[in-house]
């Protein structure tokens, strides 16, 4: 699909496994890390990792958000019992990180390593190559000291061996080269270690952020091992969103649902990835962002049963609580390439029939716009349904600009007799 964040735990696990190989044995990292979850307590971890009870520990949440120190979510230099208590107190606790609110469920535990010098390294991908950032003054103040950060560029058709690292101590530049090879070989798209320390050949990454290119799974599945791509912190799925996600995973088609405001008046059910974004955009652009209830997309030729279940989920959500101004359902879409429009409408129509009474009770008005193969039949079915249901349904084809139904719906207007 794209670039996906991975846990610090997994990134460190990979670094420990491969840094020796990519540095021709020059650097080592023990990879003493453990991931504490609701199903794997620190007691469990201590059985598998003897160091947990022997060394002073660091503990921190590992859920793809940064600035953990600033949120007072890092425990340093603690013994086992202290770390255990600290984690237990925070497990399942809800916290706010910026705009995102979510539950703490995953904690990283590793040995606390006293160190003198803190280095910073980050690798980013750009179209023409990869950019390496390095500073020997790493740590939380890196952004304040950005002018001290050195930049190196590896062209995409070039090699890191040709990059001039003068000004960086040889030991460190050797590590950067090895890290870069690791980055390329495992298809990372972003890697930042801030800070890290090096003593002899021993590397200690203290804090690490990484993203992988999940489209490279086919080539990397053995190297990555049991990798997890957690959802971004704060994405808590409702029961309905979860249901559609599961439906989506089971089919070759694409079914997406994000609830933005369950009490919103405007509900979207749009065919096509590109078109679905544009419908949501238009609602927002016209100033009705707060009324937009959901982002919804179906595409890739879903079966009648799948569109039925998808439509039913949306209809159920939108008829739970009445709104004095009534509600709007937009069944939209662009001009399909080869999808039989009438066929995909069948499942939607089945769901609409089932929700007839609720749609009337909630004063729902429906707007349809779609084009593509067999669209005339599809639109005819929708118009006929409008008469049967007693629910107002306005139906348009490619003669109406794609998003004009949004304008019509929001103004309560109609264009149908034009």
């Amino acid at each position: 699909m794209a670039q996906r964040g991975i846990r610090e735990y997994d990134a460190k696990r990979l670094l420990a496994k491969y840094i020796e190989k990519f540095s021709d044995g020059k650097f080592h990292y023990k990879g003493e890390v453990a991931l504490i979850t609701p199903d794997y307590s620190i007691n469990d971890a201590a059985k598998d990792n003897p160091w947990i009870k022997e060394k002073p520990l660091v503990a921190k949440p590992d859920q793809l958000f940064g600035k953990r120190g600033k949120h007072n979510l890092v425990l340093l230099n603690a013994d086992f019992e202290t770390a255990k208590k600290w984690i237990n107190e925070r497990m399942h606790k809800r916290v706010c990180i910026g705009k995102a609110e979510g539950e703490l469920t995953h904690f990283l535990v590793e040995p606390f390593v006293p160190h003198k010098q803190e280095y910073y390294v980050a690798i980013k991908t750009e179209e023409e190559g990869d950019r390496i950032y390095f500073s020997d003054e790493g740590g939380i103040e890196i952004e304040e000291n950005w002018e001290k950060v050195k930049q190196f560029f590896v062209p995409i058709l070039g090699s890191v061996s040709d990059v001039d690292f003068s000004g960086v101590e040889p030991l460190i530049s050797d590590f950067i080269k090895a890290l870069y090879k690791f980055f390329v070989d495992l298809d990372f798209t972003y890697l930042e270690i801030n800070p890290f320390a090096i003593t002899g050949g021993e590397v200690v990454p203290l804090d690490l952020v990484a993203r992988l290119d999940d489209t490279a799974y086919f080539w990397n599945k053995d190297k990555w091992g049991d990798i997890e791509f957690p959802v971004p912190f704060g994405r808590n799925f409702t029961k309905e969103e979860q249901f559609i996600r599961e439906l989506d995973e089971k089919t070759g088609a694409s079914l997406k649902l994000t609830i933005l405001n369950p009490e919103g008046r405007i509900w979207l059910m749009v065919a096509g990835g590109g078109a679905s974004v544009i419908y949501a955009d238009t609602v927002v652009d016209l100033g009705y962002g707060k009324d937009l209830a959901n982002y919804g997309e179906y595409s890739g030729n879903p079966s009648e049963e799948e569109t039925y279940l998808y439509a039913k989920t949306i209809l159920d959500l939108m008829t739970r609580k009445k709104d004095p101004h009534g509600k709007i359902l937009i069944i939209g879409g662009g001009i399909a390439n080869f999808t039989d429009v009438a066929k995909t409408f069948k499942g939607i129509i089945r769901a609409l029939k089932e929700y007839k009474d609720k749609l009337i009770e909630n004063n729902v008005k429906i707007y349809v716009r779609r084009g593509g193969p067999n669209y005339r039949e599809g639109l005819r079915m929708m118009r006929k349904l409008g008469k049967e249901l007693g629910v107002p349904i306005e139906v348009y084809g490619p003669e109406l600009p794609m998003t004009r139904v949004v304008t019509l719906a929001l103004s309560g207007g109609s264009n149908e007799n034009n």
Partner: protein
Amino acid sequence: MKIINERTQAIIYGRQMKAVQRMLDFDYVSKREIPSVAAIVDPTREGFETAFFGSDEILIPVYRTIADAVNNHKNATVLINFASYRSAFETTKEALDADTLKIIAVIAEGIPERKERILGALARKKGKVIIGPATVGGIAAGRFRIGNAGGSIENIVASKLYRPGSVGLVTKSGGMLNEMFNMIARNANGINIGIAIGGDRFPGSHLVDHLMGFESDPEVKFHVVLGEVGGLEEYKIVDALKNGKIKKPLIAWVTGTCAKVFPSEVQFGHAGARAGAEKETADAKNNALREAGAIVPDSFDGLPEKIKEVYEKLKSKGEIPEIEEFVPPAVPMDFDKAVKNGIVRRHRQFITTISDDRGEEVKYAGIPLSEIIESGKGLGYVIGLLWLKKSLPDYASDFIELVLKIVADHGPCVSGAHNAIVASRAGKDLVSSVASGLLTIGPRFGGAIDGAGHYFKEAKDRGMSPAEFVAYMKNKGIPIPGIGHRVKSVRNPDKRVEMLKEYAKKHFPKTEYLDYALEVEKITTSKKENLILNVDGCTGVLLVDLMKSLGLSDKEINERIDAGLLNAFFVLGRTIGIIGHVVDQKLLKTKLYRTPYDDVLYKLPNKADL
């Protein structure tokens, strides 16, 4: 001459016959003189494919490698790569190395970013254009269509893609191409060229690359761009506008403005559609484009009006030439589609009444195979469905299996097994050897089942008494089929016959023909001890009794006997044994069989007598 013109030809990587046909249909409505597809590459199989160019059917050569296709078709300048995401990198790289190929469209979605960046860099180095990855491609109106771009032929015609208009369109999303084609056809005179660069973060060519091409093409009068949240693509356009490289009017919209109302970072459908920083948001990009002089509406919904405004303005200034409109020829409807729509009909050459494999799964006599298996029915039941079109009760289906078990084999000396063994020992394969054995089944070997069924049924149906029947056959000089055995006799009965009789007496509702045959046997055995009802005879009459019990009419039973159905039970059963003998001989590695001289009596005529 434009890079893409009405004589441009493509090599298609991947045997994508639907896409090929769609390209040729586009050619036809655009009145192209030569087909736009020169060749196909399929690494698994070479040869030819056929496709329609209008009503004509043409041959398209298929090669195993890109190199072969390129060497044989030096005129082809485009490669449309339908390889999967797993092999698209290698094949695209190979195409970039071919001198004659100038444009490579990469359809696959999900190519890793590093591989994409390498392809993009290689293309730029070699001065070639990659369209994609993760795209449907694009269309040069009236000249050339990449694969499936533009959708159904109805849409091609409705959006006037069969002749060039004045608008240059470039989008990220392939899914929105049709909508934009439609919008531009309704609000201006249609596109001149429209390209979707694909939704990935590192596309092989950029929005601005295509705009620069449109800029230098005098047929393109203004640009329309549909960008997307995420990435920095659109800033390259901003730069080109600012430094005066783009002079023609440019209408732009970046989608994904809704991202700001989402609770946390959202990844939309496209891999690149994710704003990593404020600069990558749709709002920031729309503002930057607007400030750089692009015409940017307040929302996507304002796009049609902006297009219309620019078009009308340029037209009133006389910058847009009149297009000579023509009615595009109608593409003949495919036979399959015409059948589906009930437009044509024809007589079928074949009729079947027993099985149907057209649906989700095969049906035997109307019953889905899975239903048969799940209900635990046996082979006898399947035979009932396919041979008698009857859903057999258990007693009947078990009886059929009993018959098959009984006739399955009778040792190596009988003619069927003997012949099969001789053929196998001559080195023939399994099927030939089995067939050689089966071909001996006839009136003297195994075939008596048919004869017994036929004669006993006829005699009883005509009301002959057993004695009359024996006399009748004797008069005609025909030994009664199913009567008599080489070694078995009344006092030394055939165990197989005993089992059949016992089963039938216990389970069949009626055994009228068996009873009749046993009366006949009483008469014949009174004449000679070994003139018993043998296994063929017993099987024959019981199968008649079975059909009768299942409710088949006399006429239906007679038709089946005449069709050789009774014998079929022997053929099927004995095939089991014959296969066993052939396999046995193969495993024993037996040598060629030759009948010894002393087994043959040589009695040739004297030369003098001739």
